[in-house]
């Protein structure tokens, strides 16, 4: 992957220029599908875009010193990391990529969560600190399962390259891994039943309580981009390889859209769990499957 391809992937397709409208579209789909399930009309199509523009035009409270600087920096870091993660997705077949880009994608997907934790603590708000502590506990809980599932997929197919993974025929183990990833994604995206860090009305707005105006707009954008990256990762791993790129892109988009709908149904149908229940769910119920997946991957590797 040379510099021009890398820049084109980061800034145009599937990066910034393409991913930002898709992020707004996914945010709208999430709200609209919940509205339709409650027999309401729901927000208009351009609602996330209007929210973004409106937030750009609002003033922010003046903050001085290192705290103010950090509070400006965290949302920007989160957005850049999320754009980088989306840019690595192999939407176009034979679009390049390098050995180990799966590891880079996982690292970039973690950055927004770390930024949110840091943002809550640097805002010095009591509610922000509670939200950050919850986010930290949640991150530790679901990431074990998430990473074990992805490592077992990559390990059983002998590659850490996204494009190779997308092209290899899927095994039953891979579907087990994708299922484990799907269980972790609601926690990663802070939607019900794992909307603990940003538990609205319960701890105000969690880590983002003190954020306003353009900074809040950046947080919303990074949240939307996380949706794109997470659903794109699942689509990459779960979809069979299609020979024609013009057929591959619509299938990829339709599958991502389907996952967004599935997660919205889950969010609308469930209520928020308590933090101890959530942690117990990930450590006691899903960890078993992740350990099963990685041990069977090891077993397959030894036998082959």
């Amino acid at each position: 992957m040379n510099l021009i391809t890398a820049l084109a992937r980061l800034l145009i397709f599937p990066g910034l220029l393409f991913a930002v409208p898709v992020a707004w579209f996914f945010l709208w789909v999430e709200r609209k599908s919940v509205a339709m399930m409650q027999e309401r009309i729901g927000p208009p199509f351009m609602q996330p875009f209007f929210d973004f523009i409106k937030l750009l035009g609002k003033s922010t409270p003046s903050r001085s010193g290192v705290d103010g600087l950090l509070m400006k920096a965290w949302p920007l870091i989160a957005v850049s990391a999320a754009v980088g993660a989306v840019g690595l997705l192999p939407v176009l077949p034979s679009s390049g990529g390098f050995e180990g880009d799966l590891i880079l994608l996982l690292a970039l997907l973690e950055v927004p969560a770390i930024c949110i934790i840091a943002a809550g603590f640097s805002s010095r708000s009591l509610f922000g600190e509670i939200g950050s502590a919850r986010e930290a506990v949640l991150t530790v809980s679901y990431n074990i399962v998430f990473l074990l599932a992805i490592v077992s997929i990559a390990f059983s197919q002998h590659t850490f390259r996204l494009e190779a993974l997308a092209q290899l025929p899927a095994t039953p183990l891979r579907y087990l891994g994708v299922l484990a990833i799907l269980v972790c994604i609601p926690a990663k995206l802070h939607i019900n039943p794992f909307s603990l860090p940003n538990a609205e009305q319960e701890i105000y707005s969690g880590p983002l309580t003190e954020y306003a105006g353009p900074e809040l707009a950046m947080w919303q954008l990074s949240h939307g981009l996380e949706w794109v990256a997470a659903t794109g990762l699942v689509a990459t791993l779960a979809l069979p390889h299609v020979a024609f790129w013009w057929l591959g892109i619509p299938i990829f988009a339709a599958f991502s859209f389907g996952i967004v709908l599935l997660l919205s149904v889950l969010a609308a149908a469930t209520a928020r769990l308590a933090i101890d229940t959530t942690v117990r769910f990930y450590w006691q119920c899903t960890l078993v499957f992740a350990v099963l997946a990685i041990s069977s991957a090891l077993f397959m590797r030894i036998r082959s």
Partner: protein
Amino acid sequence: MNLWNKLMCYSRRHSPWLFHMNSGSCNGCDIELVASMTPRYDAEQLGVCLEGSPRHADILCITGPVTHTSVRAVQTVYAQVCGPKAVVAIGSCPATTNVFIDSRVLAGPLNRHIPVDVFVPGCPPRPDAILQGVVKAAEILAERGRTVRVPEPAPAPQSTPLSSAEPGEGQP
């Protein structure tokens, strides 16, 4: 007006985020405000969002007749809402102090402490009236443009009720 300003005005009118504050209300108006967010009235089709933090909000919805203990809180929360902002006084209490007039625990009405843009009268007002008030406030917000209105200095809150100058009148 250039394109960016037009887009900004349009976005402000279509994305009013609310923060709800109770300044000593009997809960009647609070229930009606919550009812206007329910699926039956579907405020979300107007872009309305009830936010958890005053920092995120554009429109401050205040219920209640403003008791002495809540005056400081009202002023603090008003200052925490980032500009441009609008205030909607929900119910008759913040407008006139309603049936609690002459009470010695009140520092109301609300517009003695912060500038109010829209009054929604009623005891309590119906959810559709509240939504109409919110939409009106969003229009005011859009017209206010990019300049943030500096609130006129609030008069010092009187420690005694309005009618205490005339002893005997209206007192039990």
